[in-house]
């Protein structure tokens, strides 16, 4: 009898992510999972629940709250936290603005995207977290393609792309001193399509705005932005209603949506497979700052 003894790609990716989650739980004192309610962090939390079954997830989740949230994402966050029985820690950008540690951008294109870094690093430091799981994937962006699974951050939370630790086999080096921490990316080798196929196969619940729905939007910089209370209309902006879905979920001021009729994960997979643009390219104003927009923000300590 011959058995193939081969894992399908989704199972091989799952095994790799589970290995990383367990490795961190076993070797760090205070890990935390960064949870935005976005699909990658939802998949990450789902994987964490599977990795430690039948025990509960042995670390809390941290939400960096920009204050510019989609209402349905916040509601989803609270449901997910309750369902998985994990502790939720919230770090609010507003607190840093109020305390004068962060200065709000002004103007119609103002975003709190960049301020999140200050809040994220404060959240990590205040709670003494030594490892922070993120849902970033290497296929998202060219600077992320260079990122390690265990990514060292110095005492200022900074990433030094020229001085990364070599990462061999599945032997991860999480050594760090007090005040430093490690960002851990268990989904490094997943692509957007892998994520959606896994969501479909595992029937993972997502915030409703990942599926097609009608909402008022405006055209802005070649993207569709949701017309929410956080958006200041510019001259000539004419809100109109369209059937859209979001490919990523971030700050409501800079996350665009795409026209879509996909109301199920399977329908989204069909659209993603046929899509000719990356999810960030299509819908993230924050990545368009410059060619090295992501690299520069990551060096400062961004997700």
């Amino acid at each position, binding site marked *: 009898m011959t058995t193939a003894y081969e894992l399908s790609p989704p199972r091989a990716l799952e095994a790799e992510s*589970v290995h990383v989650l367990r490795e961190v739980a076993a070797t760090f004192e205070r890990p935390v999972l960064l949870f935005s309610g976005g699909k990658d962090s939802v998949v990450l939390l789902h994987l964490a629940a*599977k990795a*430690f079954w039948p025990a509960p997830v042995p670390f809390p989740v941290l939400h960096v709250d920009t204050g510019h949230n989609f209402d349905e994402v916040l509601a989803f966050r609270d449901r997910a936290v309750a369902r998985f029985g994990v502790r939720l820690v919230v770090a609010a950008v507003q607190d840093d603005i109020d305390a004068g540690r962060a200065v709000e951008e002004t103007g119609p294109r103002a975003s709190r995207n960049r301020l999140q870094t200050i809040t994220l690093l404060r959240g990590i430091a205040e709670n003494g977290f030594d490892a922070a799981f993120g849902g970033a994937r290497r296929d998202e962006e060219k*600077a992320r393609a260079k990122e390690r699974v265990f990514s060292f951050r110095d005492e200022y939370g900074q990433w030094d792309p020229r001085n990364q630790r070599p990462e061999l*086999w599945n032997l991860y080096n999480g050594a760090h001193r007090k005040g430093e921490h490690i960002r851990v990316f268990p989904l490094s*080798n997943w692509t957007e399509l892998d994520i959606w196929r896994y969501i479909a196969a595992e029937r993972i619940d997502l915030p409703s705005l990942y599926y097609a729905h009608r909402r008022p939007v405006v055209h802005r910089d070649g993207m569709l932005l949701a017309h929410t209370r956080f958006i200041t209309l510019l001259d000539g902006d004419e809100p109109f209603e369209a059937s859209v879905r979001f490919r990523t979920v971030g700050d409501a001021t800079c996350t665009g949506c795409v026209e879509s009729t996909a109301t199920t994960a399977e329908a989204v997979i069909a659209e993603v497979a046929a899509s*000719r*643009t990356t999810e960030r390219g299509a819908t993230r104003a924050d990545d368009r700052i410059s060619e090295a927009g992501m690299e520069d923000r990551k060096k400062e300590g961004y997700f």
Partner: protein
Amino acid sequence: MLRLATAGSVDDGKSTLIGRLLHDSKAIFADQLAAVERTSRARGEDEPNLALLTDGLRAEREQGITIDVAYRYLVTPKRKIIIADTPGHVQYTRNMVTGASTADLALILVDARKGIVEQSRRHAFIASLLGVSHLVLCVNKMDLVDWSAERFAEIREEFRRFAMKLTVADLAFVPVSALHGDNVVQRSANMPWYEGTSLLHHLEEVHVASDRNLIDARLPVQYVIRAQGFRGYAGTVAGGVLKPGDEVVVLPAGFPSRIREVWGPGGEPVNETFPPQAVTVRLDDELDVARGDLICRPHNRPHVGQDIDAMVCWLTERSTLTPGARYTMRHTTRSVRAQVQELPYRIDVNTLHRDEAADSLSLNEIGRVRLRTQTPLLFDSYRRNRSTGSFILVDDATNNTVAAGMITEPSASVVWHPTAVGRSDRATRGLTVWLTGLSASGKSTIAAELERRLVLAGRPAYRLDGDNLRHGLNAGLGFSAADRAENVRRVGEVAQLFADAGLVAVVSLISPYRADRDLVRARHVAAGLAFVEVFVDTPVDVCEARDPKGMYARARAGEITGFTGVDDPYEVPVEPALVLRPQDGDPAAMAARVLALLDHP
């Protein structure tokens, strides 16, 4: 899923090749291409510079070089391919070592005009050292040598001769033009003489499943999961196959027990687990098992020892490896203190020359190192198992990963007893003739005739027949990929002993997997013994028409599964010493041809 590492420099067109692979297989997106076009225009280049797709860091784009390993993803209808794109210059050897550590296949690029250069040899050596079993040599810029078949053949032969010194199980050659896309995704119309497939087609089809170790069951305990009434040992299977009911021992304590249950992530019951699955096992007995312990079978245990011999690549410019230095070693799920005892030699990665006078290893240098660990390690040799045979060294002062190590077969725990009789003292010199081919291809008949002729001529010879050995030596083995590998390994060991004793060992064995045969070859070569691979290339329909044992009929009827040629692959030898086809005559004529080869190699 295929993990592939590429090596080469910008001059060879490596980034262009990957860009082309992604572009032509539609794995890059319109906005990525638009960004590349924008940047190319800004730099005054006429065509989009596809290399910009992979060079993600600002410094890389500014300097036009690849500095770090970048990972790229390619999904075709047949496979998910993970590309570790590594820079090629000697000062980036560590990056290639990193990329190759997880690779199934290494893609090495050469410029058709320049041919095999020092760098190509270095890349091949590193791939072989890191246990990458499949190597593809892409001869690029064929457009600049007028699509010359002769030039391609010249480079291929030169590389083959070099690769003989390495342990590479599978070697393939593809002539391409990355700039124009010839033979990258689509077959090229410019090189009608080329009979192989396009690069992408090769990557989609190459058989890597049999590369894993499915023989030595190893589960390093990573994390202990405790819940109400539940105590399970979670970990990633590092080798072999484990299933409920299996008798096991937990090392280092040596407690015997039995596997009660195997659970996949999320509590999915698993009947059989194998690498690289992440599982949780429960044992029949309540034992004190912790992270760093290892679960294996009672009669197949890893080595246990504190003296570790390894090939080590040094990864940092801030310090050097010198005897006496201490580090933290990360091995499987263990972390132990280790001290460098000796540095027997440093290896020149370009010439493979051993420098025994070396007293240190600095950045990008590779050498043989003996370490002593504070507590015993549970390990296998890297050649046998990449998971239980690899380690990293961490510098406690900087917390940096400073070295990658590949453990060599220990000589201390089992001492090789020297012989008083040299090979030249024996009356005859032995060798191994290895007949491989489908069932009913005629191997056994040819082997019997060959044995008869050798003995008649006064040369001691002995036939090792696959079917016959399954009555004794290999009685316990079945026909799974793992059992076949073990079957081939055992027959190979016996053949080698016979050859060492001065006999001609005549092996007739289907031995369907290339990697298994090549391991036997490598063992022979290492022992200084000739290994003559003869491919009995009888087409499957001819074999099936003969079918003396009625096996094909039973396989077609579905009574037996995993039958080579019917529902299990036969991997054709890449470079056999001799190919025998039905038109070469009857078994006697074929045996005569083998004999002629032995007399006049």
